[in-house]
């Protein structure tokens, strides 16, 4: 279970290049997320990625608290990250090692398994994700979709309880978008999905609409998507 209690995130910002003001990026947000599939939608810069990063402890609240299964992200960061996997929009930054096999094995290192077992588990994970035959090709030779699949495999190899995905399909074509959506739908984990794909948002059990750093809707997916469409209608991006 993910709990946000009066969470705000603030940052310094400069408008004229000289003086700095404190601006609120998000909040205050209070909610308890217990559903297995939760979608977060919102315009670019609305604060939805900040919300996602709070759950993994990548961003820490300026005030309030974020807890995952009772663990506080500010106090128990490493333990939270063992429970919460995070998938980024661009897999390129997430893939660290030269080949898929080595990258998944890298994720498994923190489990302190013997090398042979690490290897076997990494191969099994790659097989499960349909990347078994690409296990030893250079990562840079994979397609964008395969890279995102590999990023997911690397995160899920350690079997986290919660998976946070920050726009995982934004850079993918329709085929890979569908493949990643299907994969996420079949997971046992609780999934918090930040997305611009409103079809995917409607398939969730709960939708949060973020606008201007505030959660302006929290509830039924169909109503949430309709609220987001209404919010964006007639609004210019500049």
């Amino acid at each position: 279970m993910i709990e946000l209690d009066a969470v705000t995130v603030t940052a310094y910002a400069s408008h004229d290049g000289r003086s700095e003001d404190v601006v609120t990026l998000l909040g205050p947000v209070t909610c308890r997320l217990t559903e297995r599939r939760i979608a977060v939608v919102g315009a670019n810069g609305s604060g939805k990625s900040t919300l996602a990063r709070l759950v993994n402890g990548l961003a820490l609240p300026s005030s309030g608290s974020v807890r995952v299964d009772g663990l506080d992200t500010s106090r128990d960061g490493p333990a939270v990250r063992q429970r919460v996997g995070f998938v980024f929009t661009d897999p390129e930054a997430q893939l660290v090692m030269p080949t898929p096999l080595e990258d998944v094995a890298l994720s498994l290192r923190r489990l302190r398994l013997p090398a042979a077992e690490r290897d076997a588990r990494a191969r099994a994970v790659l097989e499960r994700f349909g990347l078994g035959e690409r296990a030893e090709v250079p990562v840079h030779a994979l397609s964008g979709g395969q890279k995102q699949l590999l990023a997911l495999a690397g995160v899920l190899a350690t079997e986290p309880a919660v998976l946070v995905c920050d726009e995982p399909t934004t850079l993918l074509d329709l085929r890979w978008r569908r493949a990643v959506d299907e994969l996420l739908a079949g997971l046992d984990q609780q999934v918090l999905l930040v997305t611009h794909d409103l079809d995917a948002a409607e398939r969730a059990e709960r939708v949060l609409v973020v606008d201007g750093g505030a959660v302006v809707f929290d509830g039924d997916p169909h109503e949430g998507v309709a609220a987001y469409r209404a919010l964006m209608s007639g609004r210019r991006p500049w």
Partner: protein
Amino acid sequence: MARRARRAGRPQRAPWAGPLGLYHPGATVLHRARPGLKLAGLAVLGVAVVVATGPLSAVLALGVAALLALVGRLPPHVTLRGLGPVLLTAALVGAYQWWARGWAVAVEVAVDLVALVLTAVVVTATTPSDRLLDTLTRLARPLRHVGLPPETFALAVGLMLRTVPVLARTAHEVRDAARARGLERDPRALLVPAAIRTVAHARSVGDALAARGLGEEPDGRPSRRARP
């Protein structure tokens, strides 16, 4: 013009990925050898080329490196392509040394450089990065006494191996972007975006490592970076 036409007619190559870091699966004696032994061999060769002077010893070192590459069954075309910039650097350094100190020193310096890099290529091409990290983690245990977790040290080496192809791709994309705007001869249009993107990539990788809990102690103790 003719050069551009020749390029247009050729099949495209994958972006250059650097000489180091790409493992070539195999079952040769070098693939089966322990990574620690291979790293020790590389260190011995490094010391040997510094201690032994003269062009003959350099050529001998290069012969050993080439023999190891043959034994490890490294694909010649891929290996040579990866070594391209190293060969160019060796040629430039050799040319300068020839002008400054004579042909014998020039041959020694240039050939030593190629021999060492080729031997390092053999080590990384016949050792999975995961095993290399295991060995480096073991070797770096004493660093714990000065506050550096061995896993972090090993991870830094792994990152270095992966970063070369990423930087090569960034340079390629920046060059294409500059070309698309007709700015291919403006060094600012190449260097500034390449530097900014490199820093941005470093920040993204840092975030991704933190998100995966890498660089934190495996038993859950917070690393210095993760401590709020």
